[in-house]
């Protein structure tokens, strides 16, 4: 049985790039643990028109994340309690230690995170860097593969093309529910009038997820 560990910094980081892949693995019997580092409490999106405030945003985003996880079928959600926008400044020992403790507990057969340096948001890069540092300490023979999300503009020059593709067309209902769960964060043009019909437009836009396998030395 696959044991999957997902480490991402913000509620909603799972929705666009990874939720279909997770739903697919879960359908095939995988157990997923999602360690979400923060509650995204510094997000700028408050709903449109705004229904969240700086004060209510963390609890609203926590509920949205739980709803997204239910839609995907994620069995184990862990909220690690770090503060949004601060991951790159955190005590690395503390950060790596929390990630390592989960790895030691669940012995994942694969890990998903962001590709450090190619994921645009400083929290994404710092989260990926922490996962890579932690996994690099595991003896090579026992090291699970780390599949990375990335979306920087300079991707191809830096890390080439993605090497893992998942066709998630059969899992678009789950994926769209995951995206729509984050209602304070996203107003997605293609999904404004979504009525459970998977159109060709939705398939083209959301039907494939792509990852870079991290090249450990």
């Amino acid at each position, binding site marked *: 049985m696959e044991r999957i560990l997902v480490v991402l910094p913000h509620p909603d980081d799972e929705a666009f790039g990874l939720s279909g892949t997770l739903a697919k693995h879960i359908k095939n019997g995988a157990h997923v643990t999602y360690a979400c580092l923060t509650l995204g409490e*510094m997000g*700028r999106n*408050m709903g449109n028109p*705004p229904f969240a*405030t*700086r004060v209510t945003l963390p609890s609203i985003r926590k509920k949205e994340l739980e709803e997204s996880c239910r839609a995907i079928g994620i069995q184990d959600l862990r909220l690690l309690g770090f503060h949004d*926008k601060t991951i790159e400044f955190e005590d690395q020992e503390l950060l790596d230690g929390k990630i390592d403790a989960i790895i030691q507990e669940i012995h994942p057969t694969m890990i998903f995170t962001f590709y450090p340096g190619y994921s*645009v948001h400083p929290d994404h890069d710092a989260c990926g860097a922490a996962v890579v540092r932690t996994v690099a300490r595991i003896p090579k023979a026992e090291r699970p593969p780390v599949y990375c999300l990335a979306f920087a*503009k300079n991707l191809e020059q830096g890390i080439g093309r993605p090497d893992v593709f998942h066709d998630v067309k059969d899992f678009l209902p789950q994926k769209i529910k995951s995206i729509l769960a984050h209602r304070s964060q996203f107003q997605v043009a293609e999904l404004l009038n979504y009525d459970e019909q998977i159109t060709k437009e939705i398939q083209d836009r959301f039907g494939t997820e792509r990852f870079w396998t991290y090249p450990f030395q």
Partner: protein
Amino acid sequence: MQLINQEDVQRRIDNLKDQEVYIHLEMTTGAYAAHFDSSKHPAANFITNAVIRFSHGSISGNGPYRVGLKMGQGWVYSEGLTHYEETETERLIMAGHDSQGKLIVSLQLSRQPF
């Protein structure tokens, strides 16, 4: 949140003066500003749960609004505020949202930490 009612906000500012209060002050273009438009310069700052005491404070403008708080040795200033949380009884929660509803600026005061 509702659009700022200037008189109500002024009353709330006055209720918090001459005492130690926790402040959250923030301004941000968003972490993705330059990713979406390379001509943009991404910038953000926030300070949260610093303790201040102000002796005079007021809200001015015609919307978006400005707030200035005069402290013993300095000032707190914020421009671009559009909304406040009218259901708060003790705290003052204000923010400025752009035309898409995204937060650009916020100023919050409370007797308890945020």
